[in-house]
């Protein structure tokens, strides 16, 4: 027989029941972007190897990155990189023991996300103009 007094105890709420604080989202974004960059960096190694290998390999790599899927991957990779850099700069500021109060922490979390998207768009608009 189950112990009813045990089962009637309220369960402690887990993360999904709370409204996400922006700082939690920024923290998760930092780790998730890190993992994407970790896996995606093999594409950069592939490109470097193709350049060292010879003209045919390089043309093949250029062709792959030039497809719509290649562009999509590069765009997402840029965004992940910019978001991670913004998150990193947030950590640099904290390293000086500044910006640790709640309003500033919230502001920096929002700024890191706006900055990540903004930098990505600026970079890609510059690339499209250069082309």
């Amino acid at each position, binding site marked *: 027989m189950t112990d009813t007094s045990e089962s009637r105890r309220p369960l402690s709420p887990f993360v999904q029941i709370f409204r996400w604080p922006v700082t939690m989202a920024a923290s998760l974004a930092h780790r998730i972007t890190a993992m994407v960059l970790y896996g995606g960096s093999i594409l950069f190694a592939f490109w470097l190897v193709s*350049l060292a290998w010879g003209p045919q390999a*390089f043309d093949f790599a250029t062709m792959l990155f030039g497809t719509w899927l290649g562009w999509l991957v590069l765009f997402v990779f840029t965004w992940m990189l910019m978001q991670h850099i913004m998150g990193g700069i947030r*950590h640099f500021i904290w390293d000086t023991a500044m910006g640790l109060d709640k309003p500033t922490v919230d502001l920096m979390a929002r700024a890191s996300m706006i900055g990540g998207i903004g930098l990505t768009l600026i970079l890609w608009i510059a690339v499209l103009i250069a082309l």
Partner: protein
Amino acid sequence: MRTMLSQVRGLGSAKEGTESHLIRQRITAYANLPLMIAFILIVVSLIGADYDTARARIGNPIVAAIMVALVYNVTTHMRIGMQSVIEDYLQHEGLKAAAWIANSLYTGGLAVVGILSILIIAFGG
């Protein structure tokens, strides 16, 4: 009651405390910022470039030096970062050890392949 610090050092999931890795992750992060800005400028300058142009640019001594530093620094940063993630999410000791080894092989492999490629580009081959 307090436990001597010397008795608890190294008892975390990383077995060596946060000392070396926390600081090293920060130092590689600081170095990554200017290196990454330089890298983005190099890559943007190579958009639409043909093979000879790309090879000449990456083979330029200063660019090659930046690239080698970038590959070494980024792969170190990646290895420490992934090690922390493994420590956080994997509890099984054997699985954790296997993941650590895979992490070292992946990041070490990328470092070797990347730096070797840059050297071949720089010195011909």
